[in-house]
């Protein structure tokens, strides 16, 4: 397993390199002048000063040289200072990542906890009312954009009915992570972001369960007199889960991408909101770091997916 993980980590390097190249090029291709943005309100500065700064930043160097220099800093986790807030970017990102992970990890757990039973139930009740209801939910949940659910949640359950907070991580004056108040504030963003995953999971799982359930070894298990629960959860589900694990990476894409919008809607101070605001403010060092770290999280999640895959299906290691 160790060698497998090491191999996957090495394989991730070209992907990450591609992300870094794209991130660098996209910000360099932007029409905005980094020196102008960096100087912001400094009106006293002379054209000579500007040119000197441009030189010192290496902006007059050829593009490949600029990339190598930028890459060298990135490897050392040095993304420079935010143009807008004049604070070290790495510090700002570090403050936000734990907040985003709270939503993403909770959403993942909820998705699996709700989506898997729904998928199995839909397969076992094939053609029945429950199956139809789950299918309608799946299609609707898949079709309606997450931000719409978020806005409706805030307006109806937050502003109108006051059942849930309208956003933020804690009530003003409270500052705790593992407490009821944080849990209460997590419900909205996690529920909304989970809908996409929950809608997706039963559709795939239902098909897989139906396929597995008709296999000979399931019939054998039943004929041995095993209890139905044991047949479904120990034999059927484990095999049906193999393609579902493939879906795992896709879910994380939804969570990382979705959190950008959901953090904005729920006023959640995470990496997504930070990156969104940085893009609006043309704060390129922050945008670059936000994109790189989001991509890094995504790549890591794909590695975790592959490891899970290897656990569920040991043949993967051999391949």
């Amino acid at each position, binding site marked *: 397993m160790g060698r497998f993980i090491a191999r996957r980590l090495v394989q991730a390097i070209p992907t990450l390199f591609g992300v870094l190249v794209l991130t660098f090029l996209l910000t360099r291709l932007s029409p*905005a002048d980094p020196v*102008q*943005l960096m100087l*912001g*309100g*400094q*009106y*006293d*500065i002379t054209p000579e000063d500007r040119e000197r700064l441009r030189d010192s930043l290496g902006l007059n160097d050829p593009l490949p040289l600029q990339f190598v220099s930028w890459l060298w800093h990135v490897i050392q986790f040095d993304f420079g200072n935010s143009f*807008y*807030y*004049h*604070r070290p970017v790495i510090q*700002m990102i570090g*403050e*936000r990542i734990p*907040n985003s992970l709270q939503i993403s990890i909770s959403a993942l757990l909820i998705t699996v906890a709700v989506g898997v039973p729904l998928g199995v139930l839909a397969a076992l009740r094939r053609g029945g009312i429950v199956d139809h209801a789950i299918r309608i939910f799946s299609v609707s949940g898949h079709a309606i954009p997450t931000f719409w659910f978020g806005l409706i949640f*805030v*307006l109806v359950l*937050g*502003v109108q009915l*006051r059942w849930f*907070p*309208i*956003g*933020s*991580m804690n*009530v*003003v*004056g409270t*500052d705790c992570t593992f407490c009821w108040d944080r849990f209460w504030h997590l419900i909205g963003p996690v529920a909304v972001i989970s809908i996409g995953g929950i809608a997706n999971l039963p559709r795939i799982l239902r098909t897989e369960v139906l396929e597995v359930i008709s296999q000979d070894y399931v019939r054998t298990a039943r004929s041995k007199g095993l209890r139905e629960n044991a047949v479904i959860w120990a034999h059927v589900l484990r095999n049906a889960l193999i393609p579902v694990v493939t879906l795992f990476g896709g879910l994380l894409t939804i969570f990382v991408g979705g959190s950008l919008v959901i953090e*904005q*809607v729920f*006023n959640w*101070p995470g990496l997504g*909101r*930070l990156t969104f*605001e940085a893009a*609006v*403010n*043309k704060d390129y060092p922050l945008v670059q770091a936000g994109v790189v770290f989001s991509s890094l999280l995504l790549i890591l999640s794909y590695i975790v997916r592959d490891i899970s895959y290897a656990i569920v299906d040991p043949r993967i290691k051999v391949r």
Partner: protein
Amino acid sequence: MRRLTAVLGTVLLVAVSCSQAPTSTGTSPTPGPSASDQPQMGGRIVFGATGDPKTMQPVIATDTQSSEIWNKLYLSLTRANYKTGETEPNLAEKFALSSDGLTLTYTLRDNLVWSDGTPFTGEDWKYTAEAVARSAKTVRKSTLQDIVGWADYRDGKTDSLAGVTIGNNGKTIEIKFAKVFCPATAALGGAGAGGILPSVHFKKVWDNKTTDTKTNIDDNPLNMNPPASMGPWIFKEFKPGVQVTFVKNDKYFRGAPFVDELVVKTYADATAVKNALVTGEVTYGSVEAKDNDEVSKSDALKGVRYKSSGYTYIGWNAKAAKAPWLANRDVRQALWYGINVNAIMQKILFGLGTQVYAHNPPTSWAYDPSGLTQYANDVAKAKSLLEKAGAKMGTDGVYRWTDGQPMRMRIETNQGNNARETILQFAQEQYKAIGIQIDPLLESFNALLDRTDPGTDYEGFILGWSLGADPDPYSIWHSSQQGKGQFNNVGYSSPAVDQALLDNRNGPDCSQAGRKAALKKVDQNLNQDAPYTFLYAADVNFYANKQLQNVDPNTYSTTWNVEKWWFKK
């Protein structure tokens, strides 16, 4: 950025106000304290901001979010009366301008101390002014430029601002001017920055007694970690993306606040702040006119409406390379006749505002709309003005300019500002009716400010000004103010206006009547030259939690008496 700069850059002077009394809105009137009401101690006030502060230090601050933080801590020697705009004592107990207008003396109150117990003296004022002089990021130098020795200190030829003398053990500040500066009294109270810094602490990060112009106050840890306060609140903690927390200052010279804590909480946008106000998370704040009806129905809130000191406009760049017709006065007048401002006001403000025809807003003592053309929407008149200017109608319904090119141009504004986006939609539709094609362009606020920094690559833009109590529109309209980072970004140039602006600033008649006459000339010329299509001054719809007592906001301040606010349980 530009709006805020206008607030600070447009100086405050002795003013007799014409501002209106606030109008009560919502479900109940604002209750005044009755004799039986005894203030109760404790509680927390929460204010909603749409973003984190970029800095907590006034010399370099240019955005509203930053201002919301530093103005709780760093005060000015004078302040504008919240209702009338008249300059009144703050940290100074009195101030006097000499008869020749060349010497200004502030006398501080007795026993002023910072929150950490350090005495507040004239040295703090001088330090702040010198920090402004050497800052590379400040936009506030013009306020102090007439002080004797200013340029020498700024350029590092001296290590002290010669025109400023601190006397009487730091209790008096005497400022000598090279020439008369009519708005001096109010403009200089904040040492050019708006708020005075604690020099004892800031000297540790930048020593003002130096000729080295490469060092300044612009980047240091205290800019995000204020060390002491003269205001009602003391900085406690900044949690990025979440909130800034303050606790009450027991040494505040007007008395410690009744409320224990103030939180400036960060929200994603104005809608989130409005929702937080409705649900009770935020204690007070103003809402957009479109939300006024919804918010006024809340039983937990009390509302007050008052006039704002500013206006919204469409600016026309006379130097636009792609729209040479904007240099023509008849065309700009046609653009004013071509848009239905009344309809815009109904749609955006639901009538809660005042149409404006020139620069000085209805709240200003310089406001005088008499004799100004009112440009009622008139499509035929607009077309005749375009033809008078030399435009000829094309077969496609779009006028051709004298060089044959179709009269097509961009109008840009900042995305997310509902009112301005609506104005842009109106403009696109209504200018089509007079034969001018508009390409709408939405961008972030910062991008809009960058793009409309004086130059030639923009045509029309929708923005607003928030103006100070004392009118000094020099930086907006004087022909010399068209460089990068300056505010005359419509390329406006009029010798008559230039002279009137100088008369308002430097006399010879610094009386209010004299300045009003000068400002009237400015307004008359702007009204005829139409460098902007002046639109409206919106009313402010302010709401506060009903339990919060003594809240009395008006045009020039919402929190002028915050130390007397208390929660009735």
